[in-house]
């Protein structure tokens, strides 16, 4: 039972590791890495569902009667491209955040944002009184 569902277990474990990193880590780059692991687990989910017992790779050749379902492979090719684009965009954003804030720790950024928020509000109330 457990061995038969080996791929599914790997998928679930990877998925949870990925999600945990995204939620628990404050470092923006680690979050992106977690997101990539999370997406990869879904790729494995698709690829393992394409497998047909005793089937070969989906290539047309003599003597091959049974082969894996090629459609999920194609779908995941698209999803991988999307995943790479997301990771690239995320990392580019982190570079810009580092330039603007001088930090890539979530805590620091939130602290700096709260400070700007307070300043604008103080200005606003002073403006109201004058």
């Amino acid at each position, binding site marked *: 039972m457990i061995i038969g569902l080996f791929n599914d277990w790997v998928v679930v474990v990877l998925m949870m590791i990925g999600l945990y990193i995204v939620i628990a880590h404050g470092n923006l780059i680690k979050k992106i890495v977690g*997101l990539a692991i999370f997406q990869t687990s879904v790729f494995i*989910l698709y690829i393992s569902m394409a497998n047909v017992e005793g089937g070969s790779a989906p290539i047309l050749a003599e003597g091959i009667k049974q082969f894996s379902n090629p459609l999920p492979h194609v779908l995941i090719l698209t*999803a991988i491209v999307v995943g790479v684009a*997301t990771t690239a*965009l*995320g990392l580019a954003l*982190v570079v810009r955040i580092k330039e*603007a*804030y001088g930090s890539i720790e979530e805590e620091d950024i939130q602290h700096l944002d709260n400070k700007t928020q307070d300043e*604008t509000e103080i200005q606003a109330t002073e403006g109201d009184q004058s």
Partner: protein
Amino acid sequence: MISHLPILQVIVPLMAAPICLLLKRSQLVWLFSLFASAIAFIISVLLLQQVMTSGVISYELGGWEAPWGIEYRIDKLNAFLLLIISAISTVVLIAAQTSIEKEIPKEKHTLFYILYLLSLTGMLGIVSTGDAFNVFVFLEISSLSAYALIALGQDRRALWASYQYLIMGTIGATFILIGIGLMYQMTGTLNMQDLSQRLPEVAQTRTVFTAFAFVIVGVCLKLALFPLHLWLPNAYAYAPSIVTAFFAATATKVAIYLLIRFTFTVFGLSFSFTTLPLQGLFLLLGLTGIFVASSAAIYQNNVKHVFAYSSIAQVGYIIVGLSTSTITGLTATLLHLFNHALMKSAIFLALGAVVYRLGNVQLSSFNGLGRQMPLTMAAIVIGGLSLIGVPLTVGFVSKWYLLTALLEKGWWPVAILILLGSLLAVIYVWRIVEAAYFKKPLADSVPVKEAPLFFLIPIWLLITANIYFGIDTRLSLQVASAAAQSLFGVSP
């Protein structure tokens, strides 16, 4: 040519995007994007006409037959959504050049239009396609360009907002991908019509329940249903004004379309609302969303934040309409999709005009603005009245249908809560009215002039639509109720 309209709807903005790169001159790129968006609008009008007279259009991509190839399927619901998206996009683009001159550095103007067109492509694609995996691809096209567009904002907080949206959005999209994968595993098909026929056979399996949960949570992340709304307020507040006006009117609407499509068409009404407790869940989350978001809106000092929270509350009304799972309720939902797009794009464009003149949208800067920018402020007031649901505006029409649907069901306590929620809207709109008309300008503020013409034209176009469709509801109501009836399988 006419038979290729469903694909042209998506291809025109997609092809226009790289051409922008060749044009280089900012003004030229603007005119070209406006042209492309206007063509998309004309196509959507033609599609709607065709669907209303002769029924569902099915287009086979590359000539491959439906369950194997990708099918573009335009029914009344799709055509209605296509019309809303392309119309708002075109009107908002009129003001784009004037607005981004102030808000975005010159060398990034071309990039802005490319991203805008790609985002438009993604949204139109999600709505036109009849293939579940294709939905995911278009969703990511529109989302990736949305993250980049939001990051173009002036304030550095735009970067942080964009990053948070990227994390949440990607998790949402990946959830949808998991859901689609599990459905494929059970049925061996990705075509939505085919799925809807094959899913009932395997409906009582745990895999299908899981697939349903993943898809619904993923879509709800995208549509910012309370409590999955946390990415929205900052993303809307710090993005460039044009981007906010476009997204506030269309992005969440596309997600709501997906929700309707998956619950009604793919999984089927009885499975979504009766077998699984979606009805109670939607009602509860919708109502909580209305109250939490409206109360939060009252305490905001940044006016873009006020209306961003109000958007979350409006999503709440839409979801409550959906939770009734009756034809009237669904009609109210679809009407509110259309009407909310009109109100929010008008309001956010007017706020864009305020940013153009003042450089910020803090509530204190609005003091005395009613005299200095009378036309812009009048637009915000009319838009606000429409949000509250005052008669003669579109907001009234959709609230009226929502209340009718609730009373039909006998849910009168919910109806009372909806009315109370509208009172909260009165408070946050009043704060802006008070500042603009009853407070004196700050001592050190410089008097400003009325917004430029390129802002006033689209703003008042939308405001006129707000009033016109509030009085003459024939077009919007006819299409919305026809779409609702066809989703319930009743022939109109």
